[in-house]
Each structure stands twice: as C-alpha cells, then as structure tokens.
C-alpha cells in the first residue's frame, strides 16, 4: 500500500511538472515524450522485444541528428504482458503523463483496443507497427491512427495478384485459427477467385494457434492434391509445420508450391531446416532494405552496429513508426496532434522501404509487399527470401470507394 | 398413535459390500416409550444397520419405515424432517464453531431455514439452543469452540445437536464410547432423563454391558450381520446362544 502511495505521489509530481511544462515557453528544450506499450512478456514477447529495439534505435538516430524541432526525443515504455486491457491502461496513463506520440502494442487484439479506446479518445497520434488487422484502418478508423504494416487486405491482394499470373487452379489454404489468420484467408479466397476465375479452394485447414502437431493438417492437405498451398503460418507455427511437413515429404509432393509469412526471425530459427524453393512474403526484408534507400541502409547498419545482429521485420516496422512521425512533426513544424496527422496525410516520407505515402482517408501506409523464394544466404549466414517481386502499396491497397463500402458509408 | 404401531421398523434389510454381507435379512422395530440396545461383537454390522436406518446407505433389499411410512430410499436429511435424530460413533461436531453455534446450526437445519439468506444466524434460536446445552450440562461452556472441548463434553454436545431437531426417535451410535466410568454414568442419566421427559424412544448401539442392562428396555443381539436374539434384557442375559456367540467365558 505504501509502495503504491509513494508511486502515486511521484506520479502526481510528474503530472504537476507535466502541466507546468505544457506551456509553450517552457516546452523549448524539454524532450518530447514518446510512449510505447510493448508486448515484452507474454505470448507476443518475441515480436514486442524486437519492436522495442527498433523504436529505441530510431530515437537514438533522431536524437543524434538533433531531435525534432530542436527538441530531443524520450521513449517511455511499459510492458503490457500481451494483454489488451493493460495496454489500454498503460497507454492512457503515459499519454496523460504528457506523451505526444504513441507506439501501439504489437498483438492485434491490443492494437485494436488501443486504437479505439485510447488513440481516438485522447486524440494522440498513434502508429500501429506490426498488426495487420483490417479493422484498424477500415471499420474502426479514427483520424489519429496510422499504420506501418500492409494490412491483411493488402497482403492478400498482393499475393493473389502475383499468384493469379501462375497457372495454378487447385489451392489449399492453411492458417492458424485466430482472427487475423481467418480474415487473411477469407480475403485471399475472395481475391484469387476474382483475379483467376479458374481457381478453386480444394481444402482449408485451421489448426490451433501454437499447435505442436500438424501431421493431421499436412495429411489432409496432401490428400486434397492441391497445385498450390497458400498459408498464413508464421513464427513458431511455421517452424513446427515446416519440420513436420518436411519429414513426410510434403514439400516435394507439392513441388515446393508453398507460401508462408517468412519473417527474418523465423528464417533464422529454421536455419538449415528452411525449405529452399518455397515462397514467402515479408514486411521489411533485410537483404533488400540494406541495399535500397539511404534510410534503409542507415537502419540496417545502425541496428547491426548496436545489437550485433541483423534486425527482424518487427524492428524495422517500429523503426519506421518513429521515423515517419518525426518527419511529420518536422513537416508540420509542430507536435500538435492535428497538425501532425495533417502532415501524415499530405507528406511523402522517406522510409527504410523507400518513399512512402499514406491514404488520406484511412492513414494506411502504402507500403510494398515483398514476395520471394527461400534461399540460403552466405552473406547473411542464414536463410532469406530472394525477393522476386515487390508489389507496391498503391496497387495492393484498397481504393477509397472500397474502404467506404467496407465501412458501410 | 397406538402402542402397537412401531415408530421405526426394518423388514428384512440386507446390505452387502462386494462379497461381504454386512447386514443380512435383519428385521427389527422400535415402539414408543422403548429404549432398545443393539449389541454384538466388532464387525457384526451394527453401524451399517444404523446407516440403513438413517439413510446414509440404501439397503440392497428389504424395507425401512418411519412412523408407518416407507423411507427405504429416502436420503438422511429427509428422514430428519420426519423426526429421526442420530449421533455418530466418532465425535462429529463442527470443530470451528462454538458449542452454541453447533446447536444453532442443528436447529436452523431442522426448521428448514437452510436457504434463508437474510437474518443473523448467530442470533437465531439462541434461547432454545442454550436450553438444550443446559440439558446436557454445557451451559457454562457454550461459547467455547467445539474443537477445544474435552472429549466427554464433545459427546455431550453431540447429544445436544442430535436433540436440536426435536426428534421423535433418537438413534445413538455408542454414546458412551471412550468415556470414563463417571462420565458414562453422567451421560446415561442425561439420556435417560431426556428420553423420559420428552418421551422419545431411543435405539442405541453399545459395547458396555452394564450400560446396556441398566438402561435398555429391550436388547437386540447382532452377530455376523444377523439378529441372534431380540428380547428383554433378562431374556437375552439368559440365552445360551448369546453367551456362546458373544459373551464367551467372561460373562
């Protein structure tokens, strides 16, 4: 109890200080606080930790360049334990304590909750780095959010666009049984039939999230004799699936016509077990961005220098969140929420993935979807995706009338 | 109620546990004003018979009736409400409640106030509970926790709790077990006085022969799950088979 009082008193002090410093005169030279509620423990700890590292690096780099509007950035973060309610509480608390920009939590449930219950309510610019939930920019859109990951509509559309050019007809669909996976699968089914009228879905499998045995799904998919296996498996699920599928010759049977979300961490963990020749898509492929735009090169080399390893996709997305916001602040010449969001809608930004714009009606980052084949890379000492096609966000993104229709207005 | 109709009656009840038959084809009846003792060597099936009479166990065959009504398959709580009270062989009070609270619980249960969610249990039926404790000589210890009472006092409390439902027939499982001579006498005179004052028939299991013959108006001898003899104390005392089967040389 006493502990809590002490904390309360301290927080009260911070609040008072915050109010004092809120006046524009005093603001000069004071650091701008960025709040982040990260999934540092719990189910999404692997993603949360990387996102945290990415955000930290971005702030270091911005501060190295002198900060924004002459003020340094300060990252305040809390661990939400991958719990939506905690995320909301923590984000609310940090914003009320004076934060000017919010990094949304990583897991979709938390990101959705923070979008609705914090960002819109408290009118705080908020960046969703990793969640691909459509709802954030479509149904639950509110003007203070912007997203750094292609949403599930865009990823499915991009992949369907590429696959529709191929002669495959019989598609199998595998996804872990969770809201994002289901919605991605539904979108893919819709798009592939739209773009390739000959396509049919011969089998759909939704094993549980974090399953330990996929033999059942693997056998079922093989029994349906598909031409192509589309999956939205990733992380631990993809590792387990890959090994068990490999063991019974699944990939040979489907001629390696298999696609999954191969992020950098998963490829690294798979190591020698990665199935060369299968396909995947990625959000921030390190082999591409490290050789692309100057921002990308600075990001990869900076991360490698700081942490000794190449960054994962999750780090890149969070890094971009901070960088884009900082550019928006510079463009708006203000940290005021409405000015910043106006800049988000109108500015062309420099991101690690190249020039980037946001939809004015949904604040969806028009980021590309990278699709390629798994190869073993000597240079990076781990398997990578050899990117064969980069589908620009402007092609994959839902058009304004589509978004309005989905929103029901 | 005519003198001829029994308050409690068992007709040919049998209970087996696997291959072992604990009670075999036992018939007995308890009439008003009677004090009936059940005796028999260890393992004769006395407690099982009690369980059949009180409803803790159901017989495999046979019939149990209470005040002329067949209750063979009725659970214990329903028989309580028909007027059957019992005490247990092993002291069975609520150890974390006071003596008074023990009796209060008994009264509340008997009066079907079980599901009353309002009102103060601690204030309910205090006078009546105190009177019952007075009857068993525990008035001065009524605020002590039951678990902290002496063994003899716990047995006395047990009796008070059994009486809390104002039973019309009382079944006591070895009421004096583990007591010293003085305690035994005290306990017996108490039971006698209560039985006489409220004119409650009593059926009790007992090991102590002096108790049985000084107290009971009738004795039932149970051996290996069967009734060997059923009669007046003098008759039982004189019976050859009883001597052989149960009392042995020492009698």
């Amino acid at each position: 109890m006493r502990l809590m009082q002490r904390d309360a008193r301290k927080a009260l002090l911070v609040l008072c200080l915050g109010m004092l410093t809120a006046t524009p005169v005093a603001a000069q030279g004071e650091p701008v606080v960025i709040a982040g509620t990260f999934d540092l423990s719990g189910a999404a700890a692997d993603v949360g930790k990387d996102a945290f590292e990415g955000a930290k690096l971005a702030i270091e780099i911005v501060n190295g360049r002198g900060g924004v509007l002459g003020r340094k950035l300060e990252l305040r973060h809390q661990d939400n334990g991958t719990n939506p309610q905690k995320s909301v509480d923590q984000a609310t608390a940090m914003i009320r304590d004076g934060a000017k920009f919010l990094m949304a939590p990583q897991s979709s449930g938390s990101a959705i909750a923070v979008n609705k219950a914090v960002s819109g309510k408290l009118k705080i610019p908020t960046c969703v780095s990793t969640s691909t939930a459509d709802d954030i920019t479509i149904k639950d859109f509110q003007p203070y959010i912007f997203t750094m990951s292609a949403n599930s509509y865009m990823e499915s559309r991009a992949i369907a666009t590429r696959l529709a050019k191929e002669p495959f007809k019989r598609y199998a669909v595998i996804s872990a049984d969770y809201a994002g996976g289901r919605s991605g699968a539904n979108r893919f089914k819709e798009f592939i039939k739209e773009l390739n009228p000959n396509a049919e879905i011969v089998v759909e499998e939704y094993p549980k999230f974090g399953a330990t045995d996929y033999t059942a799904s693997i056998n079922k998919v093989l029994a349906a004799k598909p031409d192509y296996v589309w999956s939205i498996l990733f992380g631990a699920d993809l590792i387990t699936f890959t090994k068990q599928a490999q063991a019974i010759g699944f990939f040979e049977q489907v001629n390696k016509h298999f696609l999954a979300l191969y992020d950098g961490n998963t490829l690294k963990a798979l190591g020698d077990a990665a199935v060369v020749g299968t396909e995947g898509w990625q959000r921030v492929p390190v082999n591409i961005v490290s050789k692309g735009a100057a921002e990308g090169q600075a990001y990869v080399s900076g991360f490698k220098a700081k942490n000794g390893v190449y960054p994962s996709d999750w780090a890149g997305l969070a890094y971009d969140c901070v960088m884009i916001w900082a550019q928006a602040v510079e463009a708006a010449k203000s940290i005021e929420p409405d000015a910043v969001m106006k800049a988000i809608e109108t500015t062309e930004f420099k991101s690690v993935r190249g020039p980037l714009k946001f939809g004015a009606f949904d604040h969806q980052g028009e980021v590309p979807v990278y699709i390629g084949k798994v190869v073993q890379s000597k240079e990076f000492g781990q398997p990578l995706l050899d990117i064969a096609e980069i589908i620009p966000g402007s092609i994959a993104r839902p058009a304004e009338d589509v978004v309005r229709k989905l929103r029901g207005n | 109620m005519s003198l001829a109709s029994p308050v409690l009656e068992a007709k040919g009840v049998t209970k087996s546990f696997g291959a072992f038959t604990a009670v075999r084809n036992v018939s007995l009846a308890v009439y008003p004003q009677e004090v009936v003792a059940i005796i028999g060597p260890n393992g004769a099936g006395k407690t099982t018979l009690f369980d059949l009479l009180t409803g803790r166990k159901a017989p495999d065959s046979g019939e149990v009736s209470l005040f002329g009504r067949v209750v063979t398959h009725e659970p214990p709580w329903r028989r309580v409400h028909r007027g059957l009270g019992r005490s247990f062989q092993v002291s069975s009070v609520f150890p974390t409640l006071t003596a008074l609270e023990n009796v209060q619980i008994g009264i509340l249960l008997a009066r079907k106030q079980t599901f009353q969610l309002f009102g103060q249990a601690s204030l309910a039926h205090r006078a009546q509970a105190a009177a019952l404790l007075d009857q068993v000589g525990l008035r001065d210890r009524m605020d002590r926790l039951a678990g902290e009472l002496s063994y003899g006092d716990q047995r006395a409390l047990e009796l008070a709790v059994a009486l809390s439902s104002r039973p019309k027939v009382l079944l006591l499982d070895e009421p004096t077990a583990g007591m010293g001579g003085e305690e035994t006498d005290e306990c017996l005179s108490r039971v006698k006085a209560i039985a006489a004052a409220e004119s409650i028939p009593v059926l009790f299991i007992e090991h102590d022969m002096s108790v049985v013959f000084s107290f009971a108006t009738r004795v039932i001898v149970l051996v290996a799950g069967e009734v060997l003899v059923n009669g007046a104390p003098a008759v039982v005392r004189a019976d050859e088979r009883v001597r052989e089967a149960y009392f042995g040389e020492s009698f």
Partner: protein
Amino acid sequence: MEHLSWRRALLLVLLGLAAAALVLVVPESRLPAVTRTVMLAGAAMSLNLLIGNAGLVSMGHGLFLGFGAYVVAIGSVKHGLSLSWCIALAISSAVVLAVVSAIIALRARALFFGLLTLALSQVAFVFVARNYALTGGDDGLVGINVPKWLDSDLAQHFVAVGVTTAVCLLLLMILASPFGAILRALRDNPERVASLGGHPKHIEFIAFVIAGILAAIMGVVAAITDQAVEPTLISWTTGATLLVMVALGGRFTFLGPILGVVILETTRTLVQTYSEHSDLVVGLLVMGCALAFPEGIGPSLQGSRLGRWFGGPVHMAEAATPPSTERTAAP
C-alpha cells in the same frame, strides 16, 4: 459464523469510500488500473464464497466474469442495445449459466471439481475465441457504448467501487445468515449437516449459483469500465489468477481476497511500468508467501489492529487451525 453488525457494515462502507477517495491521491492517469483492481477484488470476493466458505475450489471462475462482460459487449457492440438492456440480459442469462454449470461441476468432488470447472471455462474460452462473427475471436470486442454520465474514468471508478462494496455487503449478509452459517458447517462436516436435515448438494448448488451471478455482475463492471472485452477473461488463466489471489490473501478471512488482489495486481502493474520482469517479481512474491504464509496473509494479520479491519470477528482458532481435510463437494 460471521456476525453482521452495524459496525462491520459501516467499516465496509468506509472501506468503499476510501477506495472511492483514491481518486484524490492517485493521478488521473493511473485511475483505470486502480479501477480494474477494484473490479478484480469484487470477483475474488465472489470466488471466496466458494473457496473459503463452501470449501469448493473452483478453478474456472473466469467463466462467469467473462460471460457477464461478453454478454454486455455483444449486446452493445454487435446489436446496439442500450447498456441497461445489456446488463439485464447479462445477469438473467448468468443465472441460467450458473445453474447449468453448477449441475455439471458439482458432480465431481474435491480437486476434480476444480478441474471440471477449469474444463468448463476452457471449453467456453475456445468457443468464444473461435467464434469470430459473434465474439470477435481472439481480438475481442472494443467499443461498448455507455451512457454519457458513465463515460469518464471517474464515474467508472465510482461505479466499480460502488458495485464491489455492494457485493461485499451482500456477501457479509449472506455469510451471517442461516445459509452462510450452514455453508461453513458444511465445509467442516458435510456428513453431519446431512444427518441434521440439510441437503449438502443443494446447499453447494445455491452457493455456486450465487457466486456465479456475483462474478457475472463483476464482469458487467469490467465491460463498463474497460469498454472492451477479450477472451482471456474467460480462460483458465483468469480463474487461476483469482484462485491465487484468494489463496494469497487468505481464504478464511472475510476481506482476505481483496488483500490478495491488491497485493498481486499492484505489484504487477507497478513492475510492468518499469520492467518486463513482472512475472519474475510476482512469481517470487507468490513463492515467498507460500513459504511464509501457506494459509494466506490475512490470517497472520488476525489479532493485529489491521487484522481486525480485514477479518472482523472471525474466530482466532478458525484462522489458526483450518479444517485439516479440504473438501470440495459432498458425496
């Protein structure tokens, strides 16, 4: 036997007022976390009607908490019902759920009863987490509409405190009533209760249903204060956390569960603010308590002035010597 006196009721009301007055001490930004703790305290109190008083170790109490919250969320978000309708619907359907699950769960005894409640809550959890159209799946439902007067952290805090205080008063009343006294007696000796004219199963059934409904009411509070629901509320993790909170605070002390909730929830919230090792700190805390106070912290405070606050006139010996055998349901 709990005793209901004006003094104890007044103490509870004062405690409620103190919790409400926290808004003066706690900075506004921390208030939602405090409100959540208050809500959990009410839920833990309802669980302890089963654990401490009926000796029924339920591990699936999250089922009712989550159910109450989800009915409100589905009614409000999916069907646009007004909050009062949602609440009425949540409580009335919680009665049905409590009755049905009581019938199922009370078939098993002791720890099997606990595991059966756990299984029930897990089945419900999987159902909720996989029914995307109805429940939003693992993403949950956000955007529960509340009337304007309720749409502030302050109002929500007062509602949570008010409902929790009311639940505590109700529980005190129930425990002091004949039913409560008999429930305690049943925990100690079900055989004896049966031989005195009480039906053990019926008594446990009523206790289970009351606890379920009260938890669902706290679930409604959770839905109102969070304005969002997510499926872990239903899962065994919530049930187990509440169980640990009750055990930590002391299941034989009337306000023990609140103590447990405050200690665990405050620790976790504070540690999460500064570090990602809340599991480590909370885990060590729980382990330390297990070694120092295996019967919970509440009983060890008995006798002290603080203890009288928390426990009221619970018998010393009762706290010191809990019944040696845990039971969970009568045969």
